[in-house]
């Protein structure tokens, strides 16, 4: 590790022009990447990590950005190259892969063409040679039947497969450096595991260096030799990954690490445990508080039995129904007051549909839902509106879950007033109270959503859900879109509120580590069905169903000492829940492993 660096970034400063003023978004960042080494840049949104990578590649719009400093690739300053010379560097000496595999490939060209283009462009290959080489690359990134898929279009590939195509494209010219800008963020956790494995393997085979940009400490721990931590445009700390993880100096680094959920950190813990919070400036740590023990109750507040939700698939001249998406198939569970039941699974497994079906935001096909003694499926439209007082929902995207044209105060007071729970004065009092309760100030009432950060908006959404004094809250991926430090705070808030108000949470999430922290019980969903359900400790410490195990093993562990371990995940993907007409779902058998821990066996 003493060889000359491949890439040496010196005092990189990038500024954007905003309303005629130059505003620096990356300040004085310096780092080196040596041959064969993986350097991670880690930071939360707005930290400037992506801008750093785009600055290295000079891919920012010329008239709206200004890059200063030096970017030395093998001693040559990329910033001083002509645009033409720079083109010979891009995709040739330095390649890049991006976060969104769904949109990063040109939809109207075959993937074969898009990869071989690199070879004809940079290596002067003939079309035939490029094709052969492209197929070799596709095989190398483990795409099955590579030769036959050469002429297929991006949409014919799943997200994970597309990211493999992107990787094949990036590696086609055998670059010295691969810049991977959040390459796994948009992928499901099992797919993420596969892609991380692939990058590690390819790096060993090709001997290239990797600049890996991510916000996920787990991923950093898994892949990076050295790490740079970025915070609001500055590189606040850098060093060997182990050192950063174990002896991080900067308060922000420590805040970040303390907020990272770790799978397995809850061993021996009976009830949910709050995250420890480290102040990003002072570094003072607040010790985590366990949630209080749940009160014993007999009757569940929410009881779901044999819930089925299907969506028709239509085709043909007269749009006749030719099949169904079996989004939710025979799902049963119950939820007690003060309890959190987590629904986990990967995208498309039906967990969100389950949540919406329970609230009848989507009409279920069959099944029985009892909420607070009412049969939800039999309610008329006005009763349904009244029912919604007792069950509320918090959504994933804090940017889309609030009406941008309505002040925060109006938004929170509106349900209270609509349901005739009081007059305007009381509503205002209630709003102020709720805002304080979720950690905001009552004086923010007159502001509009865009004036708040993502985390604050999510707090507002929570306040709004609470305005009707609900008994049950469906939290649909409510913390997934938040930065890790904010995520921890919001999770803690939810636990606080549960304790204070005796709320029941149906906590829908794909994030196993967060689920482990906050839930009392866990249900694992796969293709619309619950394959395993039970107390959190039982499911996490003694997973029975193969899918649960696969899910657990795919979660990146923020422990650098485990770096280099391959998961050996099978390279398959989530199957489709679309079934033809007249399809009879098989009868499922279940087995009780321990008290309340039930697993599907067939």
């Amino acid at each position: 590790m003493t060889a000359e660096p491949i890439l040496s970034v010196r005092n990189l400063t990038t500024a954007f022009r905003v309303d005629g003023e130059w505003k620096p978004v990356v300040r004085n960042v310096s780092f080196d990447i040596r041959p064969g080494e993986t350097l991670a840049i880690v930071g939360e949104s707005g930290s400037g990590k992506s801008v750093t990578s785009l600055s290295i590649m000079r891919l920012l719009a010329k008239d709206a950005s200004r890059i200063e400093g030096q970017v030395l690739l093998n001693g040559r300053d990329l910033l001083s190259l002509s645009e033409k010379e720079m083109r010979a560097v891009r995709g040739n000496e330095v390649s890049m892969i991006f976060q969104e595999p769904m949109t990063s490939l040109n939809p109207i060209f075959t993937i074969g063409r898009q990869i071989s283009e690199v070879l004809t462009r940079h290596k002067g290959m003939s079309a035939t040679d490029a094709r052969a080489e492209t197929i070799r690359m596709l095989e190398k990134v483990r795409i099955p039947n590579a030769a036959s898929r050469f002429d297929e279009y991006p949409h014919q590939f799943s997200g994970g497969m597309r990211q493999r195509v992107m990787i094949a494209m990036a590696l086609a010219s055998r670059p010295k450096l691969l810049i991977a800008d959040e390459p796994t963020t948009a992928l499901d956790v099992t797919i993420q595991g596969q892609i991380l494995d692939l990058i590690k393997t390819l790096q060993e085979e090709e001997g290239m260096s990797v600049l890996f940009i991510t916000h996920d400490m787990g991923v950093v721990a898994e892949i990076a030799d050295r790490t740079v931590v970025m915070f609001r445009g500055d590189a606040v700390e850098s060093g060997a990954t182990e050192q950063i993880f174990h002896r991080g100096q900067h308060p922000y680094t420590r805040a970040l690490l303390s907020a990272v959920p770790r799978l397995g950190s809850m061993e021996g813990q009976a009830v949910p445990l709050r995250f420890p919070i480290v102040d990003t400036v002072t570094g003072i740590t607040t010790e985590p508080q366990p949630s209080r023990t749940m009160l014993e109750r007999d009757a569940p507040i929410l009881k779901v039995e044999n819930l089925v939700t299907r969506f028709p698939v239509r085709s043909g001249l007269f749009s006749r129904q030719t099949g169904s998406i079996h989004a939710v198939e025979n799902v049963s569970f119950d939820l007690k007051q003060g309890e959190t039941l987590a629904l986990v699974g990967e995208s498309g497994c039906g967990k969100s549909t389950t949540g919406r079906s329970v609230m009848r935001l989507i009409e279920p096909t069959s099944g029985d839902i009892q909420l607070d003694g009412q049969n939800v499926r039999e309610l008329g439209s006005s009763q349904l509106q009244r029912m919604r007082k007792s069950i509320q929902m918090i959504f994933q995207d804090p940017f889309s879950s609030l009406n941008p044209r309505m002040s925060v105060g109006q938004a929170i007071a509106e349900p209270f007033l609509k349901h005739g729970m009081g007059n305007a004065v009381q509503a205002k009092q209630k709003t102020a109270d709720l805002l304080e309760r979720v950690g905001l100030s009552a004086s923010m009432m007159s502001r509009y959503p865009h004036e708040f950060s993502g985390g604050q908006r999510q707090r507002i959404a929570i306040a709004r859900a609470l305005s009707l004094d609900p008994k049950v809250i469906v939290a649909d991926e409510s913390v997934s879109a938040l930065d890790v430090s904010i995520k921890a705070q919001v999770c803690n808030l939810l636990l606080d509120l549960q304790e204070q108000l005796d709320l029941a949470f149906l906590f829908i999430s794909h994030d196993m580590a967060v689920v482990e922290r906050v839930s009392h019980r866990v249900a694992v969903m796969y293709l619309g069905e619950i394959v395993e359900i039970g107390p959190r400790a039982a499911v996490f410490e003694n997973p029975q169903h193969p899918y649960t195990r696969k899910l657990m093993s795919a979660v990146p562990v923020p422990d650098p000492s485990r770096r280099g371990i391959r998961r050996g995940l099978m390279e398959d993907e989530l199957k489709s829940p679309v079934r033809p007409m007249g399809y009879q779902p098989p009868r499922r058998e279940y087995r009780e492993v321990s008290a309340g821990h039930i697993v599907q066996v067939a």
Partner: protein
Amino acid sequence: MVQMPVYIGKRLLVAIPTLLIISIFVFSLQKLLPGDPIMAMAGEERDPAVLEQLREKYHLNDPIPLQYVRWLGGVAQGDLGVSLRTNQPVLELIGQKLPVTIQLAIMSMFFAVIIGVPMGILAAVKKNTILDYIANLVALSGLSVPNFWLGIMLILLISVNLGWLPASGFESIFVDPVRSIQTMLMPSFVLGTGLAATLMRHTRSAMLGVLSSDYIRTARAKGLSPREVILSHSFRNALLPVVTLSALLFGELLAGAVLTEQIFTVPGFGKLIVDAVFNRDYAVVQGVVMCTAVGFIVMNLAADILYVLLNPRLRATL
């Protein structure tokens, strides 16, 4: 691809109610428009007996719904009735005018495309430069000049003062192609400039959308030259919305043709229909509007099919 006939069939099925609604609209015009068609056609010579006899002949004394049903029955058998004014079968009239308007449309589109598309690409690529502003200003001017005004000015300048092109008239392209194109140059230019403006703006915004997309960033990260990025990776994607737009432009074209044909006395659909409305020649109005609507729907369908063919994702999932 196997699904394409089904797709087309579906679209045609949907078109049926649309056409029925249009037919009801046009037919109710007959009731709504003041003025008696027979009086209008009689002009100065109003012999009550003759007028009555003509009303009987054209069933104008029957209740409108009955007339509608009779007309619809005729349409189903390909009979659009006869012009009240000239006794000519409407279908024959349409047969005469359609080629003219199609020629005008094609030539206008030609102008629109050769002006609008390159300018749109240029404006997008050179966004916020002087070139972009100029292209935009030219396009805006095209949009902002009233067609009929430009037409009159061109006649004055090119035909009267310079004598370069015939001021009006029409010759079938099959009879005298040179003169046919000469006579159509000015009207199609006038129509084309307006369309070019719309086309330019849509091409520009489609290109801007594509240029800011992730896959263009990918293409640039691959080290492709601006030429490859723009012409191969961007333009073909930007073409998709532009193709759909072209179908909508077809409607705009027909509307514009109304006045342009009036000014240049091009004996096409536009002129036919304005005269028919003013003369209350309902059979012609109904026939021509229906025909226009069918044309519009067919153009839309064609554009959508083209869209699908150009777009591999839709090609597969049809």
